[in-house]
């Protein structure tokens, strides 16, 4: 009985000690980033259990530009803003669209990523330059996505609906359809992987801006982040990370 109690007490102390380490990230030189890592290719956990994705690499480059170390904390999407405001992490980088509603509870940095519907075509295509050129063409989309809705609402587009966006891209490479319309974060990686077969049409059909979210009061960090972001865009550090995930 005494031994059992001793073991329990040791566990108790160990738990409390780990609580101190887990809870208090008071180290000023670590940028603690909250993310809901279930959204490939923007942020996800790879099969080795490590954080991966465009946002992850972007956050690392941002921290480097700020001369800070970076640490990621996974969060459930529904609880991500409450966690930020409870001080579980310093900022959110998690494909978060800047909206009026969210600005009531957090501050946003300048946009760091523009998400939206993009047209991709075969490398030799010359007659599709924008959305008007889709009329009369065979356009592949993923069933039930924004791209599907967008193309279905346009008159005169021959919409081909696929279960997987990868199937649509495959049919595009095989020459069975003329274009694919999809979220840029979803379909640009296919372009990056097949630069000899595919290219993206310049411009987005719809635009949402992703921003870095910070707690309302933290204007000092907000300024530092906006400064570092502008620096990354000027130095080409941002383009390097972008090209790595979405092609040039």
């Amino acid at each position, binding site marked *: *009985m005494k031994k059992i*109690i001793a*073991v*329990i007490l040791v*566990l*108790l102390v160990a*738990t*409390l000690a*780990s*609580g101190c*380490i*887990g*809870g*208090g990230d008071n180290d000023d030189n670590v940028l603690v980033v909250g993310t*809901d*890592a*279930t*959204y*490939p290719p923007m942020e*996800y*956990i*790879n*099969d080795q*259990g490590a954080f991966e994705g465009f946002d992850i690499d972007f956050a690392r480059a941002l921290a480097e530009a700020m001369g800070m170390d970076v640490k990621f*904390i*996974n*969060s*459930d999407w529904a*609880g991500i803003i*409450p*966690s930020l405001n*409870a*001080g*579980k992490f310093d900022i959110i980088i998690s494909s978060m669209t800047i909206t009026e509603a969210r600005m009531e509870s957090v501050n946003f940095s300048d946009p760091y990523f523009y998400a939206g519907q993009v047209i991709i075509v075969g490398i030799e295509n010359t007659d599709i330059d924008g959305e008007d050129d889709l009329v009369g063409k065979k356009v592949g989309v993923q069933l039930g996505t924004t791209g599907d809705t967008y193309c279905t609402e346009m008159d005169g587009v021959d919409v081909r609906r696929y279960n*997987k966006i*990868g199937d649509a891209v495959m049919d595009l490479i095989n020459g069975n359809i003329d274009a694919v319309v999809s979220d840029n974060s979803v379909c640009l990686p296919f372009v990056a992987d097949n630069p000899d077969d595919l290219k993206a049409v310049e411009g987005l059909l719809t635009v949402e801006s992703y921003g870095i979210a910070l707690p309302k009061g933290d204007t000092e960090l907000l300024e530092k982040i906006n400064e570092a972001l502008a620096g990354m865009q000027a130095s080409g550090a941002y383009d390097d990370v972008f090209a790595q995930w979405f092609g040039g």
Partner: protein
Amino acid sequence: MSLGFRPDLLVDILPELLRGARITLELTIISVALGTLIGLVVGVCRVSHLKILNVPAALYVEVLRGTPLLVQVMIVYYGLPGVGINLGQMPSGILALSLNSGAYVAEIFKAGIKSIKKGQTEASFSLGMTYGQNMRYVILPQAVRNILPALGNEFIALIKDSSLVSVIAIEELLRRGMIVYSRTYNAWTPLLGVAMLYLCMTVPLSRVVAYLERRWEIND
């Protein structure tokens, strides 16, 4: 890519799910240990005749058993920072599971203590033992043996309940399965794997509990 069962995918993700199962076991073992400690103290207070002990103990059990564990987990992680207590994910999960388990274990201890016949206490007193000595040397050793199967069942229940802490993004077994789902867009395979691994943990334990119950019956 099919949305159905993919044996190849299950083989690929098994190491990842096992890492999650390890976290589940860690969470459960630490929480059961702390919960048992809490339950012992609260359970002894529950059967005390002193109002100052049994009223708070009864209140604790009432509140913790009367609110959903999911709500408790969220209060500890998202709510407590509001009063200046900001715990990380694992400590929050362990605290919520331990406090919750403690309430159930307290009831188990209460039942165990009451299962010992009153005559034994009277005998202890007539030997000149104090209340504390009687508890410690006579009642509790017998009570603990009697409640071992019930504690085993509590352990099994907590293995399953620990899946609720996935809501604060602790990467235990269920959350691991959902992470695989988000990456592969196949829900059926990882969730079947998750269910299978929960069974691998609970079935052997329920065998142990059944064995303890049998042995206890024979000894009686």
